[in-house]
């Protein structure tokens, strides 16, 4: 089963995302911030990370950089998500090593489409 680590400071946002992912037969784990997320990845590397990066929290970006340096850290598909929808922000995320970018709010169909996009469905 494909796995996804959902990283978002908001419990509600994590729950919604996990519900969408589970409906796609994707196994989910959760982390509230970058530090917690990194610990999860060090223990078991997930197949994918749905990573919130919404300012003022800068944490998402730091986590992505750290993840890509871990052994095997290039393997997970990282889907950055944010309520920031300006092209500059999106480009920055992609340049930092994200595989896809999801603008918030999203619905279940967007999640399905983006996970298909990165080859996980």
């Amino acid at each position, binding site marked *: 089963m494909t796995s996804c680590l959902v990283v978002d400071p908001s419990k509600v946002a994590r729950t919604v995302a996990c519900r969408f992912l589970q409906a796609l037969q994707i196994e989910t784990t959760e982390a509230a911030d970058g530090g917690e997320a990194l610990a999860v990845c060090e223990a078991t590397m997930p197949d994918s990370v749905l990573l919130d990066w919404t300012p003022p929290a800068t944490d998402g970006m730091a986590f992505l950089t750290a993840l890509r340096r871990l052994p095997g850290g290039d393997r997970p598909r990282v889907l950055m998500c944010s309520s920031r*929808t*300006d*092209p500059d922000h*999106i*480009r920055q995320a*992609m340049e930092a090593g994200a595989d*896809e*970018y*999801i*603008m918030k709010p*999203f*619905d*279940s*169909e*967007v999640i*399905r*489409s*983006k996970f*298909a*996009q990165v080859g996980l469905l």
Partner: protein
Amino acid sequence: MRPDDVAFLTGLVAEKSGLALSADKVALMESRLMPVARRRGLKGPRELVAAIRGRPSDALIRDVTEAMTVDDTAFFRDTAPFALFRDVVLPQLLERRAATRAFRIWCAAAATGQEPYSLAMILKEAADSLTGWRHEIVATDVSAGMLAKARAGVYSQFEVQRGLPVQMLMTYFTKRDALWEIDPALRAMVRFREFDLRHGLRPLGRFDVVFCRNVLIYFDDETKGRVLNEIRSLMPDDGVLFLGQSETVHGISDGFTPLPDQRGVFRPADGPAPGSPASS
């Protein structure tokens, strides 16, 4: 509708059409189901759902599924057909049309434009091999409203996140307030025109590739057959026809035969078999 009605309906549509409707678009679902309910003398969507649950009939289920998916579309819908176009059909055209350096593509039910623009993006990415070529994408639909939106080329955040890779969004769209507008150069590659498929296709000219996806489902078998035969007649023998993923010509038209290992892709039955030397 109650949440369990919505869940029931999205489940039903997913099963019948393979389409994943978002449960969050309840108002839109209700507005589409109202006319179906009224036609059957029912008060509204809730009563309609109750009717399907109580006594499901194929006709009712089909009406409901169709009503909920009439204008559904997405960029690169179903992925595989567009990959086939990019990796097989287009290279073949480049080879077979080398003498005339020209080809035409028709999107026969273009809806809000995602399908023709997906093809335009593929052609744009192949621009290097297309220098000196003339190509045209003709996009038609019966609905003036859909076409107006298609022509404008302006899409919501949800629409640009269905099927479109973020890299392509960055390359081919400009953000305007909360919406995304397609590059005018892509828009210029597509010619939009109002056209009813049931009214004879002759005036449109000839096409090497036809996308007639997810529209025949609205016609009866006789009309389907007539439209398919007319498409055949405006295509060269080495043309390619793309229908929807779950659509077939079987038992409707013997003008086309399916491509092996592809869903919903066809070639003229009396044309050259794939892989055979290019016909001139």
